[in-house]
């Protein structure tokens, strides 16, 4: 089995609305796979189909070589799943809840729970209801990782986490990969998965629009750049630089879009005194837009 997840024309409609349209996707065993898309793209829908929470309207999926519906229990034993909206009854402590889930899994070492909670700075003995959103999300992360599953399916795992914890989470993902586990995680932002993911898919309006090595996606991603100088600069100074488009110069500030290598832009800017240099990753909508319309912009 070389594929952890394979979908074949997987589709899902809610009434008349087609939320997922013939998704063909392959996630290899042992890789970290980013599943990117804007709000409403169909990420959660896809993930719920893989776990048999939802039933496909068309097509099919195999996960770890198993059928999500017919081999449900066997499959779920080997998966760690973090739902996109992780909800638990607040009138219990993380320790009680995680013990319960561990028991449903046939027992999970208390040490594994302790270690994960420690790394994520989660207090296991407070009432879950009294925890902040981010700390509640950590409970969800611990239950997904605690039994060291072959496959981790994580729906927006960093939602609610502060940057420090998001980094710790990425470290967990890295270690999972080292240990041979497969990780499938959804996100809105490329930058969030780019450091850990091997490959990423981009989905929009229920359709897969791109699958590539993260490096490739990254190289083709468009950034918004704003450079401020100590005095007004001439507009034509940035007119024809490789990868730079949509140049607008207002007095001492340059706004433009950049695809790929920043070298040309930096060198052009360095002819003036640079006060500030801001490079911002666009939201995904814009990223896809350029991914497709991309070619003439890149040129």
């Amino acid at each position, binding site marked *: 089995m070389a594929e952890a997840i394979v979908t074949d024309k997987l589709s899902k409609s809610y009434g008349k609305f087609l939320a997922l349209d013939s998704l063909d996707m392959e996630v290899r065993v042992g890789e970290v796979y980013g599943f990117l898309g804007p709000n409403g793209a169909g990420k*959660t829908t896809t993930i*719920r189909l893989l*776990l048999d*929470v*939802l*039933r496909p309207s068309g097509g099919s999926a195999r996960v770890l070589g198993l059928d999500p519906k017919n081999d*449900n*229990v*066997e499959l*779920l*034993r080997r*998966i760690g*799943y973090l*739902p*996109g*909206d*992780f*909800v*638990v*009854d607040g*009138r*219990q402590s993380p320790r*009680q809840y995680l*013990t*319960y*889930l561990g*028991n*449903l*899994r*046939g027992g999970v070492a208390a040490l594994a729970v302790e270690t994960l909670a420690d790394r994520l700075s989660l207090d296991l003995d407070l009432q879950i209801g009294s925890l902040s959103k981010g700390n509640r999300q950590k409970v969800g992360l611990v*239950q997904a990782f605690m039994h060291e599953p072959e496959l981790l399916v994580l729906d927006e795992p960093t939602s609610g986490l502060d940057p420090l914890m998001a980094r710790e989470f990425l470290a967990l993902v890295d270690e999972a990969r080292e240990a041979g586990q497969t990780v499938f995680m959804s996100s809105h932002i490329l930058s969030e998965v780019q450091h850990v993911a091997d490959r990423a898919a981009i989905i929009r309006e229920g359709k897969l629009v791109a699958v590539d090595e993260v490096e490739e996606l990254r190289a083709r991603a468009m950034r918004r750049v704003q450079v401020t100088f100590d005095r007004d600069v001439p507009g034509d100074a940035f007119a024809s630089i490789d990868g730079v488009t949509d140049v607008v110069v207002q007095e001492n500030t340059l706004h433009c879009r950049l695809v790929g290598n920043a070298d040309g832009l930096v060198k052009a800017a360095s002819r003036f005194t640079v006060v500030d240099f801001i490079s911002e990753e666009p939201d995904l909508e814009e990223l896809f837009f350029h991914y497709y319309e991309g070619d003439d912009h890149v040129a």
Partner: protein
Amino acid sequence: MLRDVWTKTLWDQRRALLGWLIGFVAVAMMYAGFFQFAATPEYQELIDSMPAGLVEGFGWDDISSPAGYLGSTVYGLLGSALIAVMTIGMGAKAIAGSEEDGSLEVLITMPVTRTKVVIDRTVALLLAALGGGVAVFIGVLAVREPADIDISIGLLAAASLGLALLGLLVGAFTIMVGAFVGKRGLVVGAGAAFAVLGFLVNALAPQVEQIAWLENLSPFHWYDATGTLGDGLDWGLTLLTVAVAVAFVAVAVLAFNRRDVRGT
């Protein structure tokens, strides 16, 4: 308590359940204790002055005998309504409520079948209903002698079991509706409608000759607390009650296995 789905279900609701049990004991003691005042000529006069249909509908026609009194109060409308409210609440939470609040998604993505989730939640409901029956039994037993209730302990236990099974039936119906639709409000409404309709059919149908047979369809008729307090459980109807509850749960399992679970 954290070992399995049914134990956890009870554990999560322990405070509410404890409240219910205390309530059942208290209500049973209060109403059963009141019997000594009901078995007086004055009270019988009051009942006699009420419209006959109403008296019959609520089963007050035999209010001065212990079986008639308990069967129309503790084990009558009051007891059935209380246990139905409890099991409708639990039944609605079992699937629809957890689905609506989002916590069901985690549970069904654990390595347990959906069938087990339905059955475990039903077991929790059954135990709660039996607990309610035991609480009523204890309450009545506590005042049996001082209140001059001349009914054997065995018959009281039988009526309490009947009450618990009525609760189970209403709760199982509610679970079944939840297995089809994940909307808690709707499910509570359906459970309440089932209970009220069952009660009304039992109370009113016998008063109209042409539709009197309809009472045979009502679980409240099968339950017949006054009859049980007099002659013991009708095993055929008791079995029927359990069988219908089991059928509801079977349908619930089938329905829940077939459908999407909607998250929040």
